[in-house]
């Protein structure tokens, strides 16, 4: 059981000691930081609300006239707060984070590993790009955007499934979906010329 660095009593609040009020070292886990359950479905408005409330309490501006140790914790806490907010706000990053926390590897998807069901589409896109065929590129873009939409729907479904079952098998499925989605995203960026 951790105790407050300042007064030695066990802190009841995750960020501040309930007895002496001093700022504690930040929790490393993003869900813990926001005092959220480790779930994949998340209320975005509630996350925003907590982000602003925590910013007001933890920001270095507020700790300017405090001791060295609290100022350091404030800097560390706010850095984690910002990183955590950025990660949890975005469903894809949130899922990647949870996977990583559960020991899954989520590296860059290599373009060489084309998902077999996408082989034909990739071939067509490359042809269209080579010939700068505007219509074909637009058609491919529309198709990929639709595919991305489908995979988002499927991901949302799997998120709920995981939150209820907490099964590693579901996480493995989500990882597959994430890889596929990333691949589609890359294709969209390629077709848009932004990659």
């Amino acid at each position, binding site marked *: 059981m951790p105790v407050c660095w300042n007064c030695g009593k066990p802190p009841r609040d995750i960020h501040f000691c309930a007895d*002496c009020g*001093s700022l504690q070292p930040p929790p490393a886990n993003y869900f813990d930081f926001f005092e959220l359950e480790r779930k994949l479905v998340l209320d975005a408005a509630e996350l925003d609300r907590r982000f*602003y409330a925590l*910013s007001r309490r933890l*920001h270095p*501006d507020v700790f*300017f006239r405090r*001791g060295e140790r609290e100022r350091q914790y404030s*800097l560390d806490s706010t850095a984690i707060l910002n990183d955590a907010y950025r990660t949890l706000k975005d469903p894809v990053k949130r899922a990647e984070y949870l996977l990583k926390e559960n020991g899954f590897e989520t590296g860059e998807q290599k373009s060489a590993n084309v998902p077999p069901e996408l082989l034909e589409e990739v071939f067509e896109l490359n042809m269209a790009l080579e010939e700068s065929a505007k219509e074909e590129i637009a058609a491919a873009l529309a198709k990929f955007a639709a595919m991305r939409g489908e995979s988002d729907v499927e991901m949302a479904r799997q998120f709920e499934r995981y939150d209820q079952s907490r099964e590693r098998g579901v996480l493995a499925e989500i990882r597959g979906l994430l890889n596929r989605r990333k691949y589609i995203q890359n294709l969209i960026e390629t077709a848009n010329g932004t990659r």
Partner: protein
Amino acid sequence: MNPVFQIDFGAEERVVGIDLGTTNSLVAYMDLTHPSVIPGEDGDRLVPSVVSLGRGGEIIVGNQARKLLIHESSRTVYSIKRLMGKGIADVEGELKLFPFHVAEGSESVIRVSLGEKTFTPPEISAMILRQLKKNAEAHLGEPVTKAVITVPAYFNDAQRQATKDAGRIAGLEVLRLVNEPTAAALAYGLDKRKQGIVAVYDLGGGTFDISILKLHDGIFEVLATNGDTHLGGDDIDNLLIRIGLEDLLSEWGEDLSQDGEAVQLLRRAVIEAKERLSFAPSADIVFELRGRAFTRTITREVFEKLIVDIVNRTLGPCRACLADAGVTPERIDEVVLVGGSTRIPMVRAAVETLFRAKPHTDLNPDEVVALGAAVQAGILSGHVEDQLLLDVTPLSLGIEIMGGVVSQLIHRNSAIPASATQTFTTGVEGQRNVLIHVVQGERELVKDCRSLARFDLNGIPPLPAGMPRIEVRFLIDANGILSVTARDARTGVEQTVEIKPSYGLTDAQVEAMVEESIVNAEADFRARQVAEARVEADAILAATDKAKQSDAYLELSDRERKDISAAINMLLLAYHSDDHLIIREQIEKLNAATMALAENMMNTAVGRALKGKKI
């Protein structure tokens, strides 16, 4: 009660807000509830960012220095902000347009010559800061040692570090660097409107920034920022100067581009015309050089044709900023204009068209940034409550990986403080150190990004290749400045990191400058005393000279006249001494020698006065 709550160093110590601008600098403070700009000794609220090295070695700043731009152009420098945090290769283009005299041996840190001495840009900025500090101390009647200083939002790490160094050299503890557009938003107190999205368009003398903020019950959350640290009013001036020089070449048949005095006179003339064109449909560029005059009328229409490219160059960053913020122009509720160049009607029109909102202009665009800095100073010192700035880093941060490619660790427009952790290992058995090259920028290749620093992780335990695991944490603080810490992931032992900044000064160099500035302050003081003694000597020599023409002089004895001549000669000899005491001693001697003369003159004057009166 716990001691934690009592750690409060000097609760009432004043923190000032400083806008260290390309053209002008200002200092402001929180006066009870409102920010207020502090005027200088001459009553002017703007201190021109111009520094001159006097003939006696004294440092001259502001309006006085600006006057010296014309006749002492080789000892005077302006727009030094353009060189902050830059290497010589970055500024080759600038050097063609600005009369910076860059000294030999300026590789990683530029050194600018002022007369016989050379200074780095942070040292010159420190001279401006020291003047502002002095103005604030005189106005507030108390020592000022803490400040919030503003920087362009698009300033990179090296430029920010250089600004912080300047503060340190000037004897100021820089509590925070605040981005200029964000400061402007704070000054507008736009929190009156509880929610909303605001765009701040800041076109200053040398830099352009655009920031988009979301307001949320007193929280000023920057969504995205973009800009160009090489775009501003200076560019318009340089364009007009070039045209003026061409006109003069065809009119007078003389190329004046290498004539420092002529260029500065022309610069002043075009700036005056440019400023009038914001209010009048046409203005004259009036140029006079050594008795010759040249006038050219410029209409607003022609002016706008000339500057349209410069104005358009601001629109690209605006669109990129909107995209990064994830908002469409329709969602912008308010637009704030900052910087003197936003007085130009064409700039206002362009902003209005792009954001589809009428810009706020109620605060003086020259002062709004300093006022905002004072508000932030108030937040840090606890005088302003319920307001909080959440800013972002303008540029992505990455490290060099194999093949000269950049691996991004912290993306641009991430909220700061921000951090990223990366694990490094060795490639060879027994390798004891790892070199990490950190860059800033949006491009894929290292060569297209800005090199920030090389970090040398040393003291790695000798192990087979790939075994050591060194966890490196990159942290961008609330000032937008990077720090790096490392620890051995197996043992948890903190690892030392040696930093070699690519541009700018090392800590030791800054420390040396801080010390030197104290020594210089003494030298400056001595130089001033000498200058003052010489002024006094001039006065007494002139008075004596005049008195020698009078009847009173003839009434003196030969001995008295001889003593006076001897004292004059002694003072003339002492005049060029570096010791003010020697000069003063001879002034006193001349004073004593002319005592009888002064008395005689007084008597004659009284006699004459009495004669005039009818008793």
